[in-house]
C-alpha cells in the first residue's frame, strides 16, 4: 500500500503542473479576460491599460510570465491579491500574513460541521432504514430523504433566517464569522444551526446510498450466517454489514469532503462568511489572476489528495482490496 500511495503521490506534481499551465494560459489568453481592462474601468486610454499591464507583468511573453510565476511559487509565494496587495498564501504558522487562512478557517468549519451532521444523519438513518425495511420508520426516513434532496440547501438556509425573525423576533448573529474563542455564543448561533441545516440537506443523498448499499449487504449469505451463529444485531450491522457496505459510502463522503476545502459560495453568502468559495468567485469576476491561479491549483491539489485518501481507505475497509 505504501508503494501504491507513493506512486500516486508522484503523479501529484505532474497533475498540478498541468493544471497550472492550463489555468495560466486560459486566464491570460481567452477573450474578455483582460484584467487591465477590468481594473482600469471606463475611460481608460490605451496608455493607461499598457501601464497597468506592465505593472502586472502582463506585457511579457507567456512563457516568461509562467517562468516568473513558477520561480515565485518555488520560493513560496503565490503572488498578491490585486486590490488588497496582501499575500495570497503563506505557511500556517504565519497565517496572519496572508489571505488564505482567513478564508479557509470559516469555510472549513461550516462545511466540515455540515458534513459531520450529514454523515451522522445520513449513515445512521440509512442503516436504520435498511434494518427496518418497509416499516413505518423506513417510509418516514425515505420521505424525508426525498424532501430534503429536492429542496436546495440555500432555500433551507434562507428559511432558517426568515422564519425565526418573523415568528420569534430572532435573527442569526450579524457580522459574519468570528472565532469560537473570541465570541462563543456568536459562533454557536451562526455556525451550529446553519451546519445542522446543511447536514440535514446533505444527509438525504447519503441516507439513500447507505440504505441501498446496506440492503444489498444484508441479503448476503454471510450476514445470514452471522445471524445464525447468534450474533447480536448491532454486532452484525457494525462489525460485518457496515464494513462491506462502506466502500461506496466512503467514496461519497470523500467527494463531499472536497467542498470542506473548496467552499460553497452560496452558503458563504447567506451566512456573510468571507470564505474560499466567495473569494474564488469574486476573484474570477474581477479577473484577479493570481488569486484565481492559486485557487485553481489548490483545488486540483485537494481533489487529487482526497481521491488518494479515499482509494487508500478501501484497503482498510475491505481487506480483500490489494494495491498492486
Amino acid at each position, binding site marked *: 500500500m505504501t508503494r501504491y500511495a507513493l506512486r500516486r503521490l508522484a503523479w501529484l506534481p505532474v497533475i498540478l503542473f498541468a493544471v497550472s499551465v492550463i489555468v495560466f494560459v486560459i486566464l491570460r489568453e481567452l477573450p*474578455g479576460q*483582460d484584467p487591465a*481592462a*477590468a*481594473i*482600469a*474601468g*471606463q*475611460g*481608460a*486610454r490605451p496608455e*493607461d491599460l499598457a501601464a*497597468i499591464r506592465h505593472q502586472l507583468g502582463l506585457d511579457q511573453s507567456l512563457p516568461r510570465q509562467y517562468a516568473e510565476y513558477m520561480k515565485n511559487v518555488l520560493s513560496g509565494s503565490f503572488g498578491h*491579491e*490585486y*486590490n*488588497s*496587495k*496582501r499575500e495570497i498564501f503563506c505557511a500556517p504558522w504565519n497565517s496572519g500574513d496572508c*489571505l488564505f487562512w*482567513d478564508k479557509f478557517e470559516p469555510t472549513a468549519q461550516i462545511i466540515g460541521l455540515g458534513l459531520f451532521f450529514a454523515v451522522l444523519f445520513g449513515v445512521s438513518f440509512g442503516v436504520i432504514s435498511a434494518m427496518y425495511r418497509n416499516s413505518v420508520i423506513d417510509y418516514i426516513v425515505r420521505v424525508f430523504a426525498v424532501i430534503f434532496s429536492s429542496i436546495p440547501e440555500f432555500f433551507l438556509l*434562507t428559511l432558517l*433566517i*426568515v422564519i*425565526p*425573525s*418573523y415568528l420569534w*423576533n*430572532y*435573527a*442569526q*448573529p*450579524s*457580522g*459574519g464569522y468570528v472565532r469560537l474563542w473570541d465570541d462563543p455564543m456568536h459562533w454557536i448561533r451562526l455556525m451550529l444551526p446553519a451546519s445542522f441545516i446543511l447536514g440535514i440537506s446533505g444527509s438525504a443523498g447519503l441516507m439513500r446510498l447507505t440504505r441501498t448499499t446496506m440492503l444489498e449487504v444484508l441479503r448476503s449469505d454471510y450476514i445470514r450466517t452471522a445471524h445464525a451463529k447468534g450474533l447480536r444485531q448491532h454486532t452484525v450491522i457494525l462489525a460485518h454489514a457496515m464494513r462491506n457496505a462502506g466502500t461506496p459510502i466512503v467514496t461519497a463522503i470523500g467527494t463531499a469532503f472536497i467542498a470542506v476545502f473548496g467552499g460553497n*459560495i*452560496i452558503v458563504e*453568502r*447567506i*451566512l*456573510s462568511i*468571507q470564505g474560499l468559495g*466567495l473569494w474564488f*468567485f*469574486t*476573484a*474570477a*469576476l*474581477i*479577473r*484577479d489572476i493570481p488569486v484565481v491561479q492559486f485557487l485553481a491549483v489548490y483545488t486540483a491539489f485537494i481533489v487529487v489528495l482526497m481521491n488518494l485518501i479515499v482509494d487508500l481507505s478501501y484497503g482498510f475497509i475491505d481487506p480483500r482490496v490489494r494495491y498492486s
Partner: protein
Amino acid sequence: MGEGDLGLRYWNSRISRRRVLAGAAATAAAAGSIAIVGCGGGSKNNGGGGNGGNGGALPTARVQDGYQDGPAKPGGILRVRQATALPSMNPFGPGILTLAQGLTLGFTVFDHMWYVPTDTGEVELFLATKVEQPDAQTVIATIGDATFQEKQTFASSGASGRKIDAEDIVQSFKRYREEVGIGFDFLHDIMEDITSPGPMQVKITTKFPWAWIFTSSNAGSPLVSNIMPKEILHGWEDKLTQDAIGSGHWILAGHENGANIRFRKFPKFRTFQNGRDITGQPYLDGVDFVYITDDNAALAAFRTGDIDTYGFSGRKEMEDTQSQLGDKIVTGQDLSRDYLNLMMIYEPPFTDIRVREAFNKLIDRDEAILLLNDGDALKCGPIPPAHKKYVLPDNDPTVQDYFTPNVAEAKKLLDAAGWDYNQEWELKHSNRPVDSSLAQVLQQQLSRGGVKIKLVQEDLVKWFSQTLNQSQFKLTCFQHLPYEDPDLPLRFYLSAKEGRSNFMKYGEDEVDKAVLAAAQELNEEERVKKVQEAQRVVMKHYSPMLNILSAINFGARYAYVKGSITGRGSYGLFNRTTWLDKA
C-alpha cells in the same frame, strides 16, 4: 440620516437579492444612492410637490437638516448594514473598483472643502470658510483650521495629528488626477490647475467657465476632493490598502478584511461648517458597518434590532415591516437619483433620427414602471426627476411628446428609415437583476414595433469594462449611478473631448452647444433655464441615450435614531447630526 451602507445600496439592493454576485464586483461602483429614512409618525409620503416632469406628487422626503429632533444626546454607536466587503481601503487606483472605498471613506474619514446638497444646489462650506470667484474660471477657497487624525500606521510620515494646510488639498487633487479618469471628468477635462497661493488658500482654475465646479460631480466630489496628507500620497500604498488617515469626523478604527468596518469619532474634528458652530459633532461615538451579505439576513437583523437602519427592496417590504414593528420604526420614501436607460451606438442605422425617435416611441415608460417597480417610480428624461429645480415640468410640450409611446407612429418612422425587420439586434446588459429585468422589458416593448432583439447577458465586470467602456455594443441598457446634480446626466450627451468620447460615440453640435451653455452659465436662474433648454434639445434630437425611469426608494430607521438629514441627497451620509435617543 443617510442610508447605512453608504452608497453601496445602489449595487447591493439591486444585485444581491436574486443573484450571487461577487463582493468586489458589487462594491465596484458605490454611489450616493441612499434609502430614505424618515419622517415623523411613520407616514409614508413626506410630501413634496409636483415639480418633476413626470406628473403627480413627487415623493421626495421632507427636507430635514438634522436639527429637527431637538438637543442631541452625545454617545452611542450607530449600526448600519455593509453588504459587501471592500477589497481595499486605498482610495486610489484606476477604475471602478476604487469607487467603493473612495466613496465610503469620502463620507467618513476624509473631509472636503465644501459639499453641494441635491435639494438646494447651493454650496455648503465645510473646511473652506470662504469661497470667491474672481472670474468665470477661477475659484479661491480659504480654509479654516483643522488637523489630521492621529493614526499610528502613518506616524512615521509626519502626517499624524498635523495641522492641515492648503498644499494638502492641492496635492490630494493632483494625486487623484494621476489616476485614470472616468469618462469626461472634472480633474482631467475641466480643471486646468490647482495651486496654493497661501498656506490656507486653494486656487482652482478651469480650462473654460464651468458652473458646476462646486458640485459632487466636480470639485465637490466625495471621492476626488478627499483631503489627505500630502506625505502619504505616494509610496504608502501598502499601508493605504489597510488603513486610512484624514481629517473627517470619523476615524477608521478597524475592519476585518474590508468587512465589519468600524468608525469612531474624531474628537478634534473641526468646529465650524458653513458659518455655523458645530462643536460636538459628530454626536455619535461611532458607526459600525455590520457585514451582512444576504438581503433576507439583513432584513431579519433590522427586525430584531441588530442594525438601526434599512433600505427596502420595495414598498411591500416596507409596509410589511412597518406592520410588524409599528411605532418602533420610522419609514420613509424618496425619489432616487439613479435612472434606467437604453443606449444606442451612434452608428448606422442609429444615426438616423427617425430610428431613434421610433425606439423612443416604442418604449412605454408607464408600463416599464409598473413591471419593474410595481408602479413606484417616475418617468425620466435627460435628467432624473429628482433634480426638481432643473427638470422640465410635466406640461412641457417636448416632455409630453417624448414620454408618449406610439407603436403605430414608431412603425411608420422605421419604415421611412428603411429599417431591416429581418435583422436581429443584440441588446447587451450586465447580469445585475435590474439590468436583466430592464432588458427583458425593452425586448418586449421594442418587438411591438417589429424590432428583433436578442438579449446578451454579460458578467458585470466584462460588461462595464469592455462593452460599455469600450463602446462594444449596438444596444445596451443599464441603471445609471445616482448623481447629485444635472451635470453628469447631461455630460453623457457631450461629444468627444480630448479623446474621451461618450459611450455612444455620439456627437451633435446643437446638443453640445446647449449642454455647454448650461454648464458655463454662472447665474443660477439663467442656468436653470439653460438646463431645461438643454433637455429639450436632447429630447428633440432623441439623443441615443433614452432614459426611462427613476425608482422610488423606501427605507426605515428605528425611532430612537434622531437627527437624520433627509431629502438632501447624499448629504445625509455624513451622519454628523445623527444621535441615538435610547433610554
